[in-house]
């Protein structure tokens, strides 16, 4: 654990007319890029690479251009750029769709295929060869009795820069740099594994979020960035961190950058009016000695914190605020795992199923968490049970059985209008497939088109390879 020398912690807050100019000004304020990059350094730039989608789901490429050029100017031997994307999506797929590999090459940078997906289309990989490449590309690192695999290109780089597009996030209010650092490990290692779930204690204490926070900080402690940039020149607000129907882009013209991730995030939280203790990621990081969160101790250059007062519309804090046409959303006790996945699934449905939602049968209940309230119209409603907690806790519920009474006798029938989306928490792409099977492709033409579009860049045989290569 590093000891923090508070005097050495510097954070610049800069405001400008264009993202490029603002970043250059910020770097200048911190003493210039040569203060961070030496001649002959190998540099790794961690950016947001989530989906093959446009800005601001991913980092602003204008900013990356400036960074690559600045590193090269400072004499960097090699500039790599990379990140692990959303579960089930390969870096190669995103690179092909956004033209990243060639774009970075033209700037004298190199896209790092951290998931080795550049090998996925090659033939003749036996298990021996696979092992050799895996060993060559990953290191196993133990932190707090947990094992992570992390790409060697990140560990071996002399300098590490994190550039993060600030967007709202359903769990941590905003996606700040600490959260951005989490995707330097594959998805498999980002998942929270706890076999003893589904008990009240786990849910009440939101153990999922606690474990997730610990994991993020463990990964962060493996390799801390030398230069951290929170790009909030444009912020995706209202719904995020990827573009949804309710999302809005707001221009602040501001960037916050410095040499200490925790300090940069703390200052960003402050100017965005996010409660400093909540996101608790920052306070936990400070407690664990991973950085400085006390604003009064941070040397702040540029704009005055007190003069900036940003109002950002946060994500919906309750799932029923998503307002899905013809759906009633009912939640029991749930942890952040199901909250996050349900939030994304509901927003994805709202964005990509507008026509389907309008013409779907009007009675649909979406039940989430432990012991959720009963659906509105038992027998009529299509009931979607989201997550293992909802499935297990409603096993003996009345709505699972339909009673048909005639003059002579009562008949009990299993309610077939129940769709179980299992998982702890469920996987979104699997949920989409199950929804299509349940309602039928004819009744969900928009979701069908969306799922086919997604399948065009996540073909089954390639996603399988993510698992074989231990990165899925």
């Amino acid at each position: 654990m590093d000891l923090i020398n508070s005097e050495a912690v510097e954070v610049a807050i800069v405001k400008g007319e264009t993202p490029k100019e603002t970043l250059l000004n910020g770097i200048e304020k911190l003493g210039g890029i040569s203060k961070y990059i030496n001649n002959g350094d190998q540099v790794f730039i961690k950016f947001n690479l989530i989906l093959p989608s446009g800005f601001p789901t991913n980092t602003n490429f204008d900013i990356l251009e400036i960074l690559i050029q600045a590193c090269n100017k400072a004499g960097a031997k090699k500039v790599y750029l990379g990140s692990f994307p959303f579960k089930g999506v390969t870096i190669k797929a995103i690179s092909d769709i956004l033209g990243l590999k060639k774009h970075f090459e033209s700037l004298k940078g190199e896209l790092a295929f951290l998931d080795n997906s550049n090998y996925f289309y090659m033939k003749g990989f036996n298990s021996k060869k696979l092992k050799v490449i895996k060993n060559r590309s990953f290191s196993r690192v133990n932190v707090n009795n947990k094992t992570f695999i992390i790409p060697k290109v990140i560990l071996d780089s002399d300098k590490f820069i994190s550039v993060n597009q600030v967007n709202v996030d359903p769990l941590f209010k905003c996606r700040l740099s600490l959260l951005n650092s989490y995707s330097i490990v594959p998805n498999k290692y980002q998942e929270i594994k706890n076999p003893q779930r589904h008990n009240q204690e786990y849910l009440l204490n939101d153990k999922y979020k606690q474990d997730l926070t610990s994991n993020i900080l463990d990964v962060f402690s493996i390799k801390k960035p030398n230069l951290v940039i929170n790009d909030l020149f444009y912020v995706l607000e209202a719904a995020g961190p990827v573009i949804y129907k309710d999302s809005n882009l707001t221009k602040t013209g501001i960037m916050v950058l410095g040499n200490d991730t925790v300090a940069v995030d703390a200052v960003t939280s402050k100017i965005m009016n996010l409660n400093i203790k909540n996101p608790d990621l920052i306070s936990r990081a400070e407690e664990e000695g991973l950085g400085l969160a006390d604003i009064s101790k941070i040397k702040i250059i540029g704009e005055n914190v007190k003069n900036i007062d940003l109002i950002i519309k946060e994500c919906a804090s309750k799932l029923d605020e998503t307002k899905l046409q013809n759906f009633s959303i009912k939640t029991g006790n749930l942890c952040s795992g199901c909250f996050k996945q349900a939030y994304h699934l509901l927003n994805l449905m709202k964005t990509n199923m507008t026509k389907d939602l309008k013409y779907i049968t009007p009675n649909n209940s979406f039940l989430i968490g432990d012991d959720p309230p009963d659906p509105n119209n038992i027998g009529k409603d299509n009931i979607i049970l989201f997550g293992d907690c909802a499935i297990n806790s409603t096993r003996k519920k009345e709505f699972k059985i339909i009673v048909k009474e005639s003059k002579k006798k009562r008949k009990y029938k299993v309610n077939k209008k129940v769709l179980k989306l299992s998982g702890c928490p469920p996987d979104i792409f699997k949920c989409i497939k199950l929804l299509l099977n349940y309602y039928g492709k004819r009744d969900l033409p928009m979701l069908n088109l969306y799922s086919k579009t997604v399948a065009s860049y996540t073909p089954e045989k390639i996603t399988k390879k993510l698992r074989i290569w231990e990165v899925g």
Partner: protein
Amino acid sequence: MKILKYNSNIELFDESKELKERVRIPLTPIETDGNIVYYLFELLYPIFINEQQNILDFVISDNEDEILKLILYETKKAGVHESYQILPKDLIKSKKIDLDNLNDFFNIAQSVLMKKNNIRFSSLRIFKNKALEYINNFCIGLEDRNFHEFIQTFLELIHKIFEQNIFYIYPEPNIYKFLKKLILFLNGVKLNNVFKFLVEKLAAFNVSIILNSEKLILILKFQKINSGSDLTFQLYTPRNLGINIDGISKKRLMNLIKFKLKAEKVYFFNQNHVISLLSSIFELEFPLKIENLIFILQKVLFGFRSFENHWYMVPRPKIYNPLRRFLIRLFGITLNLKKISHWAIPELIFNSINSNFGLNSKNLLILTNISKYKKGKTNGLDFLEKVFRNALLIEIENRRIININPINRKDLFINGKSNNLETIKSQISEKYGVVSTVIKIDSLLVNEIINKSVSNLSKFKPFSKLKVIKMFKNKNFFNIYPEIPPYKLMMGKRIKSLTKLILRVFIDKHEF
């Protein structure tokens, strides 16, 4: 002058009166009967310009420091100019007119006119001398211009006037604000060139449009004789064509007009629907919000699906015949235009733009013309350069189109190098910042889209419409770099299954 005389003589609008006098619609070569002109001004002026009476016109020097002429138009109704009087040019004493804030000047002029002439005006127009020069030049030989030339020169005039800021109107009507911002937004892209391009794309046609209203039915005849740009236009009332409309059915009226004007097709619309659509267009804000464009598209598609409800056509398009639709359903294709999903299509486009291009993006649109390139290979080094016609860089910021920039050929192609969309993307990104996507579309495909969707509607050739999809799948006609997911999907699917997939979104269920 003729129209002023006509307006001052007419007491009450009466279509039934026998009209001998033909007048020219001001600023156009279109001659028609005075009744129509009177009616058009009476109808359109209050909606699009100003609903109150009397207009005060100023002609000022180009450097804005001198009033050269002052004219008061008296209108007995808004838009119906009856008489005019030239007022002393020093009537209103103002050192320099603040053209950016005309409110004060309007109030001063109003009080002077009230005091001296005991008359109120509702609208103030200011022409710089240069504007009058342009208008006068435009009017020379106007009567001899054909319709196509007239529209071209008229759009040119509008472009010059708004680009050079030499005409002002207060209070500013929506149409004025729209044109001013549109021309600024188009950033050098000329309206007349856009018009010329679109007309060229249309195959020869001969259509009549009936614009129905309780007061006066208008009949518009448009004809394009050759595939070039010969466009003609005439304006009639049923009476002009010797048609008595008393108790006549729509169908009979359309068939009579088809016969009298020898039209291939006759369309029937309600005037108020057309006016409502135009009003929505003029209300558009700039920078253009994509959701506003989507709203307009929704309106258009809603109109399109309201066949035999809000609009009619003879000959009746065969696609609306249930038996034929049933037959193509047997091939798995649902094509009921009355069930076109007027809101789902724009939603889908909107979502697709948002998620694929992002909320901020720069996209390059290249228009090619491969029909002019007969020799050589389509994959030759200079192929793209040879077929290049125009390029526009479209900049989107937070779902608004904030800029449209015409791009020169020399900014796109590197001499002697293999030029493809990928090299163009990096070339253009160097100069204008990172360009997300380069989209290339060929004129032949644009022709097909326009003609298949607009003019060929009455023919029942569903499989010929698949040709458009086929062309979209051919990289010579349409290409995107990098390949965004919807494009990838399109390229990876067979035409039939792609059509089925899309039509399920585009056409609503329960069609029979």
